[in-house]
């Protein structure tokens, strides 16, 4: 059995697919701590422009929407993401036609689930992301999403806050989008950065907490629903869920 290890980039994944697609019981993964099964052969994949280009071209020819779907699947925060994408690709190649309507095929269902988790989380963070005003007028928003969605939510905030310099920081993946009202770049960062806050910041956070408390109907508790819609792991960066004050 072959184990293809990729460096986590999309290009490297497509390079691996070139061989893995027909290599029936292989595994493709970018996980660093992957446990090798007995008798497995390790193949470290180096990105090959030509192979990855050919795979892309083939997929595009079969289904124009497939590349986007696969790019979404590869953003999943779970170790099996490459295998989900691979199974979906194999089905595409086997049918030589779009397969997203085959709603009772396991590979399609898995792929749909993965895509839904990624786009769903991106949608949620257009709401759950929280900015703080820095002393220098730059708004800073740290978050730690399950999936790699920084550049999926970015266009939304670039449109909405076009005149506001901001930083959106994925602290788990240690990268941040930096925007100065003209250009936007994504850069690698440390897990923690220290930001000096503006003198108004605490005041507005307090008003927000007051609002959050007042708008709640205390006689009608439904914590389960709240946590279902807004999972506890997201609370870390939301002022209304910090119990100081």
């Amino acid at each position, binding site marked *: 059995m072959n184990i293809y290890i990729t460096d986590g980039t999309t290009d490297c994944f497509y390079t691996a697919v070139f061989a893995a697609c027909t290599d029936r019981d292989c595994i493709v993964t970018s996980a660093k701590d992957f446990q090798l099964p007995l008798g497995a052969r390790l193949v470290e994949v180096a990105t090959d422009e030509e192979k990855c280009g050919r795979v892309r071209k083939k997929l595009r020819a079969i289904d124009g929407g497939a590349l986007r779907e696969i790019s979404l699947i590869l953003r999943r925060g779970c170790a099996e993401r490459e295998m989900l994408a691979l199974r979906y690709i194999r089905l595409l190649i086997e049918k030589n036609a779009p397969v997203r309507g085959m709603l*009772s095929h396991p590979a399609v269902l898995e792929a749909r689930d993965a895509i839904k988790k990624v786009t769903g989380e991106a949608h949620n963070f257009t709401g759950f992301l929280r900015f703080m005003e820095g002393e220098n007028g730059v708004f800073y928003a740290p978050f730690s999403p399950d999936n790699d969605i920084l550049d999926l939510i970015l266009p939304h905030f670039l449109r909405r806050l076009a005149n506001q310099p901001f930083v959106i920081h994925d602290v788990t993946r240690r990268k941040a989008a930096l925007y100065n009202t003209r250009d936007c770049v994504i850069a690698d960062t440390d897990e923690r950065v220290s930001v000096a806050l503006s003198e108004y910041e605490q005041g507005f956070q307090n008003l*927000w907490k007051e609002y959050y*408390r007042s708008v709640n109907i205390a006689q009608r*508790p439904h914590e*389960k629903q709240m946590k279902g819609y807004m999972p506890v792991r997201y609370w870390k960066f939301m002022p209304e869920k910090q119990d100081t004050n």
Partner: protein
Amino acid sequence: MIDAERLKILTESAKYDVSCSSSGSARANRKGGIGNAAPAGICHSFTPDGRCISLLKILLSNKCAYNCLYCPNRAEADVPRASATPDEICELTIAFYKRNYIEGLFLSSAVDGSPDSTMERMLETVIKLRKVYNFNGYIHLKGIPKADRLLTFRAAQYVDRMSYNVELPSEHSLKLLAPQKSKESVLLPMRELAAGKRALAEEKSKKKPRFLPAGQTTQMIVGASPEADGQILRLSQAMYRKFSLKRVYFSAYIPVVKHSLLPDKTAGLLREHRLYQADWLMRFYGFSAEEIAGEGDNLPEEYDPKCAWALRHMELFPVEINRAPLEMLLRVPGIGTLGAYKIVRARKFAALGFDDLAKMRIVLKRAKHFITCGGKFYGADNAATVKALLALEARGERYEQLSLFSGEGAVLPMPDAQENSEVRSGTEKRGAEARAQERFALLSTAANAESARTGQL
């Protein structure tokens, strides 16, 4: 800057307005401005009561000249009073918006002074917010009945949505419980705004002003007065048709105020929930109010209204999942718009069996009694058994509703889970379901055009 104390008073008075949806408006950010409105609506937080926070819901003032019996802010009530200035509201909206706490503003007010002076201050607030503060996010304005038409129409050019709450489903009840209001005073601005919007839509000119891009909504209190569900649904249907309303919200009456004219018992969340289900059927499933309940009837408690309809029409079932037209799939209890849409899509590739439906995560507990898959039937075969099974299943749902409601003290209106899910639905659902829903909206308008009745408006 507004202080925490007034914020508290003005928010606590506003929070019972059910409408939380910020969807339905696409407004682009202008150069030099802040914000835009996303057509899908976004939830920014959830409170411990399970509701979504999307908008900053606040009153400009809770000092009221009116005396609606059921309202905690009525003139006679002894409660702390406060008001905010237009600038205070604008500053707070902008500060919250920049931090991504909210999607926009939901501005409402008690009748502080006269309707005109109140509406003037509200108008001043929204104009400032748009022009001085350059805000392009979502604004919902709750209109003040009896205010001058010119004020109302100007406001409509600056905000995304307006609402006038009908509150009580008949003129008689309104007279009794809200003596300064009349049905006409609420319906008149709704009718005029709907006409204004229609007229503008027909206008050819390119540079038209914006006019309520997210339309109008309204709210009714259920159970403060004796009207039956059938009558409430007919009124809703007539308003959907005549005023092109985007939503009708229902809120179960809860006694906050003791008065001999008011019931001392709540209508209960189950009734509210059933009305929302019926409303859903009218908007997305092609049902008419007449099909759902007789004019003087209430919706059954035992099952949801779609089940109830199907049980009355057992002669139409079972339907074959691989052949039934979309409209019929939608009428199968337990199959939603998304489910129906999935079935129609998947059956193009292969005939669907019972297991395939399960794999597609279509819940079959109820549906199995009403469908066949490739000619095979998996449900109970006599109507009495089906009824008993469905009633049993609905019991769980009822208990949940009742336990929700067993908290101490006054319990006030809240949108049901379905409501929230409309606002918070993820991208995927939006795609598929929205498409499915659009088609049914079309279908049902076509059907309705034939049977259009004038309603009692």
